[in-house]
């Protein structure tokens, strides 16, 4: 193969297809959930430490800012979950074509929108 063929790896000059947005958001939500995990471990630790700690966690999560942060975390979790299921489905050989990949990406965005609304109903 000729190694002098033109290569464009400057991602900023490429219009991304929906599958690329699905992929990069899976990564971004994953990195975000790494930080969310620290918060969830703190909540678990405090809530299980004593009845006082449990009450403190309930009170903390009642604040509007904490509730919004929790909602955002649930949306990131919902997206990462749906995109992960899509990966597993594709591992089974389903939806691997170009059109299948586009359909899967649209399905993941739609599922996340539903989960975001459900999380909002749950929290408020």
């Amino acid at each position, binding site marked *: 193969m000729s190694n002098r063929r033109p290569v464009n*790896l400057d991602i900023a000059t490429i219009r991304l297809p929906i599958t690329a947005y699905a992929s990069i958001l899976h*990564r971004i939500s*994953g*990195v975000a*959930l*790494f930080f969310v*995990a*620290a918060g969830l*471990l703190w909540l*678990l*630790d405090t*809530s*299980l*430490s*004593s*009845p006082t700690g*449990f*009450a403190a966690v309930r009170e903390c999560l009642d604040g509007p800012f904490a509730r919004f942060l929790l909602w955002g975390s649930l949306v990131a*979790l919902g997206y990462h*979950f749906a995109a*992960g*299921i899509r*990966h*597993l489905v594709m*591992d089974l050989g389903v939806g691997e074509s170009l059109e299948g990949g586009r359909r899967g990406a649209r399905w993941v965005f739609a599922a996340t929108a539903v989960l975001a609304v459900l999380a909002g109903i*749950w929290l408020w």
Partner: protein
Amino acid sequence: MVTNATSFSRSGLSDWLLQRLTALILAAYTLFLVGYLALHPDLDYAAWARLFAGLPMKLFTLAAAVSLAIHAWIGLWTVLTDYVTERLLGPVATPLRLALEIAMILVNLGFAVWAIDILWGV
């Protein structure tokens, strides 16, 4: 064969499989915990502590915590090796990536130890 010193299992195929196995455990744990919290809106401390005091829930939580550490290790390693590169950041990239990888590994190990410490006290 080129092996990598900071990937979780030193093998791409093994990392691939572990990422999926840990994903299934984390998915099951997430569904259980979200379902439990949704079904118990008036949860109090006694019921919450009782849930985590049982051996099955302790083992389930331990499995989820270990899975989280492995899953995040593999995922963050992939992200760091893709974006903290000499092509994107210049010569500083290699020492920076190594530092970030070691920090990320230590935090993930810390998550697992923290979870064990929490379960120990219930």
